């Protein structure tokens, strides 16, 4: 029988101080009975002598210092897992939600996981075709990568994430595939959009959803991504599945973390976020990856909304330093009515070089990718210049580049939410657009590829 304490001395914000505790351990799970039938959970943040500082996941409303009973469970926070977890919908702390049945646990896993030994990691290099040209062609996603979507309020990040979840496949492979969705503080509508989309495509049976909505307890969100990733690790390494994890919205997660940090009166880092935000985020993101001699993999797509579209805000900034690239959405393209509004120039996939090329996509992929980037960047510059000085001020070549930039946005970036382009279609489209430019300007492409793939002027006029 666990010892019960009625020695809560202080409750402030999401924190609670318990005195006279024996044998409390750092990080252990705590059960609080605020009154009869009101069970809550918490986690030990600090132990000092016989004092334990506890973080309350479900908030402190209604806790009475005299009445509350506290039990220290002697273990960390765990997630019960079993193959039946697939198809389930759980809350942010892993309890069944709606009509999901209670799981008969095969085993329980600590949600904090353990760091992967770098020596055990296998380098991600299997190309995932998402059917979205701006990702496949320019910011290639590979299995085991962590590639976030940096979005802003009102941008269609949910649609893009759902499209990736729907279309993602590894060419020439039939393998067990699952989606784990972790929602932190998003609205019912957004969560519902994902559920409906998964349901419509029949993906729900091979999905697990952990849902903490905007009106659910904010501190609970700190556990949600870890729940989702623990579940993903179970599916990937116990059941040999390839798992795609979508976490939305990491901004809400970071805010919950800030709330706890502020309540503890810690020295803040930038913008009030705790100094350990980088380390904390890393322990989430780094759980993606591949491990040698294991069949499964975890590919992670966290979504975050940048406050004021500010890329230098600590959340996108620290995320970008940990993840293997980023897909940035552009409000400007969105206003132009272009879907998906991927801001190509600052977007990046760091692992693309290992996932493309002969045998994976096509031999000309790397060169055309570099060339498309360089040409689009030059075209955008020319267009900016033309705004100030008028088109007449551009040189002939720059005019061509400006025209190229427009065509690129209109044909390459733009596609339908249900349009699933194969990698060959994407690459050929790239060549078609590059044919608009003088051959001498295509410096980043090797001669042999120019000779083999560049459409002749006759082809390209026909195509236009």
């Amino acid at each position, binding site marked *: 029988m666990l010892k019960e304490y009625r020695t809560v001395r202080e409750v402030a914000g999401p924190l609670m101080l318990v005195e006279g505790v024996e044998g409390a*351990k750092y990080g252990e799970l705590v059960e609080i009975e605020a009154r009869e039938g009101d069970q809550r959970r918490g986690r030990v943040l600090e132990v000092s002598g016989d004092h334990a500082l506890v973080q309350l996941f479900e908030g402190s409303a209604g806790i009475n210092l005299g009445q509350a009973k506290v039990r220290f469970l002697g273990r960390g926070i765990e997630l019960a897992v079993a193959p039946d977890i697939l198809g389930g919908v759980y809350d942010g702390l892993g309890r069944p939600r709606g009509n999901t049945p209670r799981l008969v646990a095969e085993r329980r896993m600590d949600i904090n996981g353990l760091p992967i030994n770098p020596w055990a990691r296998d*380098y991600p290099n299997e190309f995932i075709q998402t059917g979205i040209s701006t990702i496949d062609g320019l910011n290639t996603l590979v299995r085991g990568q962590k590639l976030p979507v940096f979005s802003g309020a009102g941008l269609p990040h949910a649609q893009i994430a759902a499209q990736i979840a729907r279309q993602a496949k590894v060419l020439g492979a039939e393998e067990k595939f699952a989606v784990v969705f972790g929602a932190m503080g998003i609205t019912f509508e957004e969560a519902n959009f994902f559920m409906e989309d998964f349901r419509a495509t029949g993906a729900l049976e091979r999905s697990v959803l952990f849902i903490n909505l905007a009106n659910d307890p904010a501190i609970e969100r700190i556990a949600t991504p870890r729940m989702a990733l623990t579940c993903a690790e179970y599916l990937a390494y116990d059941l040999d599945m390839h798992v795609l994890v979508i976490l939305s919205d990491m901004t809400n997660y970071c805010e919950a973390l800030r709330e706890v940090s502020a309540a503890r009166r810690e020295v803040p880092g930038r913008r009030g976020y705790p100094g350990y935000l980088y380390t904390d985020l890393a322990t989430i993101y*780094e759980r993606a990856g591949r491990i040698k001699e294991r069949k499964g993999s975890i590919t992670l797509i966290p979504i975050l909304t940048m406050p004021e579209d500010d890329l230098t805000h600590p959340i996108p900034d620290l995320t970008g330093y940990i993840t293997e690239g*980023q897909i940035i959405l552009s409000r400007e393209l969105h206003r132009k009515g272009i879907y998906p509004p991927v801001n190509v120039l600052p977007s990046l996939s760091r692992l693309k070089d290992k996932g493309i090329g002969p045998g994976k996509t096509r031999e000309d992929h790397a060169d055309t990718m570099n060339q498309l980037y360089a040409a689009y960047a030059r075209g955008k510059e020319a267009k900016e210049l033309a705004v100030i000085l008028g088109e007449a001020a551009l040189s002939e070549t720059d005019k061509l580049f400006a025209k190229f930039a427009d065509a690129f946005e209109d044909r390459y970036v733009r596609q339908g939410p249900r349009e699933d382009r194969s990698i060959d279609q994407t690459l050929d489209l790239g060549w078609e657009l590059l044919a608009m430019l003088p051959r*001498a300007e295509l410096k980043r492409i090797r001669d042999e590829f120019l000779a083999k793939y560049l459409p002749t002027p006759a082809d390209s006029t026909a195509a236009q």
Partner: protein
Amino acid sequence: MSVGGRIVKVSGPLVVAEGLPEARMYDVVRVSEAGLIGEIIEVRGDRVSIQVYEETAGLGPGEPVVTTGEPLSVELAPGLVESIFDGIQRPLNVIRERHGDRIQRGVDATPLDRTRRWLFAPRVKAGDQVVPGDILGTVQETKIVEHRILVPPGVSGRVVEAAAGEFTITDPVAVVERADGSRVEVAMLQRWPVRKGRPVAEKLAPTEPLLTGQRIIDTFFPVAKGGTACVPGPFGSGKTVVQHQLAKWPDADLIVYVGCGERGNEMTDVLMEFPELRDPKSGEPLMKRTVLIANTSDMPVAAREASIYTGITIAEYFRDMGYSVALMADSTSRWAEALREMSGRLEEMPGEEGYPAYLGSRLAEFYERAGKAKVLGSDGRLGALTVVGAVSPPGGDLSEPVTQNTLRVVKVFWGLDANLAYRRHFPAINWLISYSLYVDQVDAFLREQYGEEAVGLRQEAMALLQEEASLEEIVRLVGVDALSAADRLTLEAARSVREDFLHQNAFHEVDTYTSLEKQIRLLGAVLAWYREAKEALAAGAALEKLLKLPVREAIARARYLPEHDAEAFARLRAEIASQVAAVREEGEVVA
């Protein structure tokens, strides 16, 4: 050697313990039954604060703490090269074999293999007098690294015995008799505390460039052997690719790569790629001269703080053998953040942005361990340790404390620029803000090796790029038409310098490395076109025709020419001359 203490407080990686009266600052302690490794970072009365290098979840008051009475040290002996260690020198490959894919807690593994036998060839014989730093003998550790076994500090006298043969690192390989008649058995294995720099006989000023095969670095902003450099840049600007390139291609004898709080997959990348890539000098796999220290961002934060010291101590050890060693630390910002986190938990008064007030002095101390030196030993060997630190400024803002404190001590600044990266101009080193304070020393070297022309090329190209920057201001205001033909030629030439010379593709098999010799030829060709076109323009040739010369495409592709094909470049130069001359004649006829 140890008296038991007890934990009284646990707060993240910080543990406070009581009852360790013999505790000294920076001593290593073992925490709890699991034996987690920690280091004492504060002593206050009876209470000591310990930073624990492993995850502390599950620890609580009352658990035991014992001190080992020794500071954090590394093991130095054959077996270092080709290894991968964590921040406190535990071998990650051994840990995986024993404990699986994840790093468990309280894992204990000796850094170096105690059972492997190395073929030791003595360089001294009985009767020789030796002093600390003298080479006792050598072990061919890998095909390219000859591991020199040195007389340890504090040992000098007459060699009584030095045996050839196969030994483990703990077997004695020599016996030295001191002046007082006492005898010391010397084994290959030595230990050194990581926070203390290894001594040298004399520090010297760096003179030679560290050639990296990266054009913008070698030609424009060189770093000297024994120098210090930093690479700050926002995320996505290619810091890590630059660091990897620097770890791959420099003409150093040994590379120590410290992955400090960075991505796990980046270390995997190094682990997979380095055994495949070949050193241009020796033709052997790069891994055969590399030591890796990996403390990835998901590994415990306190060990991150230790990792760069572990790395630099290993690097100093190889420098002491008389080698040129290069150390890459990616990224020092993560190290500083670990410092900040511990400082915050100690409730120290914060300096700027929450960093401790001693951030600047810690950084300076670290970089000052670099240098060229006459190392210990009676033969006057020279060694050099070059340190390159990546910095990850939040939001790309260079005014933040880590960047600023780093710039105060390093001599080379390679400023990465997100805008260049967006245009896929790599390496995205901004030529207008970067600098190298080794230019004068390196110029002297260039002059000696390649003649005056080589020195002039850089100045000419740099002037061209500066001019481009000011001309672009004008273009932005009034358009390109307002420029004279000569200015437009300048713009084109600057573009050619950027695109045909500075831009370098790290993933292209030829372009990834360019020898200094080829760099000079390549830049020579780019500038030859400019000079001759300028003269032709003055003589009345048409600008449009000069810009559209077919030879310009050949210049753009010259970077893919083979390394030592001097003739190809000579043909290119001849072609430039003849094509420009043809346009010039046309112009003169019209005029």
